[in-house]
């Protein structure tokens, strides 16, 4: 059937005046840096800021805290922020998928707790092999997530209720699993201890990773641009690629430098590497695979997706499974930080912070819009605020208030810009 449109009908030669490929109303960007700049200013004026507000917010946070406490940007503090970001950030990646699907998962904290408890009971109390115990813990998270997905997709219980039931039920399970012990220590030298405790002290690690990241990024941009040009499609100009890659390079190398060089620097934390790996894979899945496309489609309009022949139930179940899996994995990071699994792991504000990170990073709560990287950005914002306030030693009630205010402020800029977009009819 495709030939129907590809080879024009016999009398098609009559339609001599082909429609111009590009709409004349589209304001095309000029070539070169100048075009980049004019487009940038146009976007800023039009309110299409993307991640810019959060970046600016982060810079403001850094400046404020650094001016209050000179150690805020020290190697060890930055490394700590990176490590704290990793555990909850991994959970936030799962939540990003759930939010793109237009749903919510309230059970992440409890599933994290169960994951940690399963690992601790197997590995520490029953002496199972490290890796096996970790694998089983993560898989049990997957299983719980799939169960949520099943009840949501197949039985039709709202995800909110399913995961609320999970939130309650699994935290009971967690306490029950831990049994007699209030907490179970992570053995010295165990995999879980290393999760947040291990640093690649060799400087080559941080710099190497930065280099690989920059090369991969620039390479993929260039390749894409080349292929697009070959297909006669509009492509990114080289100048823009250079600019983007340059920006990424500066970012990566500054971070690598801070982690490697200053006094007290301990190198690249393993936790960060793992988190970045999760991000890259998740981003690839979200943007470059059929599954990712289906998640966006279901989140945008589930009925349209269904009519397009997408197995909506399957997508939903898998996304909740993914969220459970990542929650349990993140739970092991938290356990590693706490020195072991505890009965209260994953309680408190865990859930709120994880969701907040995704939202601050720019993922919509209403489905269909979001980026995996928002988990990173949002969580860095949250953990930086906490680290800064902790370093200032502020009373916890004041910390609550400031965290609330900063959260709001971080999103206000973004919202104001989106409002501009909205009056321009684009949101």
């Amino acid at each position, binding site marked *: 059937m495709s030939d129907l449109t590809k080879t024009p009908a016999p009398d098609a030669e009559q339609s001599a005046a082909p429609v111009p490929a590009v709409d004349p109303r589209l304001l095309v960007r000029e070539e070169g840096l100048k075009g980049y700049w004019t487009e940038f200013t146009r976007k800023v004026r039009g309110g299409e800021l993307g991640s810019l507000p959060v970046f600016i917010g982060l810079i403001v946070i850094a400046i404020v805290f650094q001016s209050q406490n000179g150690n*805020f940007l020290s190697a060890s503090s930055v490394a700590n922020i990176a490590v704290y970001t990793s555990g909850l950030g991994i959970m936030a990646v799962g939540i990003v998928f759930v939010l793109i699907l237009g749903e919510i998962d309230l059970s992440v904290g409890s599933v994290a707790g169960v994951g940690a408890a399963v690992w601790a009971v197997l590995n520490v109390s029953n002496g199972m092999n490290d890796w096996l115990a970790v694998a089983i813990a993560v898989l049990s998270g997957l299983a719980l997530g799939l169960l949520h997905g099943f009840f949501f997709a197949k039985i039709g219980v709202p995800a909110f209720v399913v995961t609320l039931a999970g939130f309650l039920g699994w935290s009971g399970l967690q306490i029950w699993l831990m049994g007699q012990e209030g907490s179970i220590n992570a053995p010295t030298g165990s995999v879980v201890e290393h999760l947040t405790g291990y640093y690649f002290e060799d400087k080559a690690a941080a710099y190497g990773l930065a280099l690989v990241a920059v090369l991969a990024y620039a390479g993929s941009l260039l390749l894409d641009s080349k292929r697009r040009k070959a297909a006669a499609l509009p492509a990114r100009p080289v100048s823009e690629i250079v600019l983007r890659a340059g920006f990424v390079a500066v970012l990566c190398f500054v971070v690598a430098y801070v982690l490697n060089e200053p006094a007290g620097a301990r190198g690249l934390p393993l936790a960060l590497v793992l988190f970045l790996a999760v991000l890259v894979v998740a981003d690839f899945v979200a943007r470059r695979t059929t599954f990712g496309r289906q998640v966006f489609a279901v989140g945008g309009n589930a009925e349209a997706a269904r009519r397009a022949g997408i197995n909506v139930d399957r997508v939903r179940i898998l996304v909740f499974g993914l969220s459970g899996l990542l929650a349990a994995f993140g739970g092991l990071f938290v356990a590693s930080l*706490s*020195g072991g699994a505890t*009965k*209260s792991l994953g*309680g408190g504000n865990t859930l709120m912070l994880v969701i907040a990170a995704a939202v601050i990073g720019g993922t919509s709560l209403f489905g269909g819009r979001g980026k995996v990287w928002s988990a990173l950005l949002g969580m860095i914002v949250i953990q930086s605020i906490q680290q800064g306030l902790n370093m200032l*030693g502020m009373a*916890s009630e004041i910390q609550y208030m400031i965290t609330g205010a900063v959260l709001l402020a971080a999103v206000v800029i973004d919202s104001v810009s989106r409002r501009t977009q909205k009056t321009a009819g684009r949101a």
Partner: protein
Amino acid sequence: GKAGDGDTAGGGGDSKTIGLLLPENKTTRYETFDRPIIEAKIEELCGDCEVKYNNAAQDTETQKKQFDALVTQGVKVIILDAVDYKATKSWVQQAEKKGVKVVAYDRLAEGPISAYVSYDNEKIGRLQGEGLVKALGAKAKESNVVMINGSPTDPNAPLFKKGAHSVLDTGVKKVVYEQDIPDWSPDEANKKMGAAIDSLGKNGFQGVYSANDGMAGGIITALKKQGVKVPVGGQDAELAGLQRILSGEQAFTIYKQIKPEAETTAEIAVKLLKGEDIASLTPTKVTSLTGEFKDIPAKLYDAQIVTKENIASTIIADKVYKAADICTAEYQAACAAAGIK
């Protein structure tokens, strides 16, 4: 229609039931020790008595509902370990009107209670302070100390804090960093400790006060990561804490002998149920923390500082944990060194 035929609050109906309300379920002690010991002792003293147990999971409102549920069922004696010792005043008053006797356990609940059995929380705080000063040794006077306190919303946390301050404020050079940890959360404690190190520098402090063992776990992880080695003290004698003490990561913990406390409470409760005199079990009299209720018959126990040296003579000897529980493969050597078999 005939809904309430199981005769309730009115008459002396349920004279064989004792209510037991414990405050939370996230640390080791309550479900693992207090509850079984109390239940066993009551069983021993009164074979046909039943214990109705509930745990409030750290929520005052929940505990009130559990309290009401017991009163509703006509329970005559309630052992109450209050989530919030102050808030209980009206509950206990109402219960008293219905002839329900309340034994305050572990925390001095406000109101016209019949008896009080406990450790003094402020005193425990003082012990913690003393333990830390001792662990710092001769350098104590020149030492700076970091204090990681309990939850800002837990009414008991200020008592520990107050007690510890009363010792540390004079015993050490300065408390250079102090934080309350919401929900006593170990990972939060870890982050606060990390921030403290970042802010004070690795040599900016010489000891850490941790309000309980769970948080000490997170604190020690943070210290280890930065390669800082200073004494850290906790509370509760949790298994994980004891193991850290053995491996030298944690300096001490506070051990409250739960067994005598729990058993005395059980005895008092049974006596109250049978209408017997409890004077023999309650040698002292205390006044409620607000000063409103005076002459409460009480039995106060003393807590102990547990270090590597006396684990064997306390925890093991009291059969809180078996040597085998503590001395898992990883801690075998340390156990041997500490003389634990």
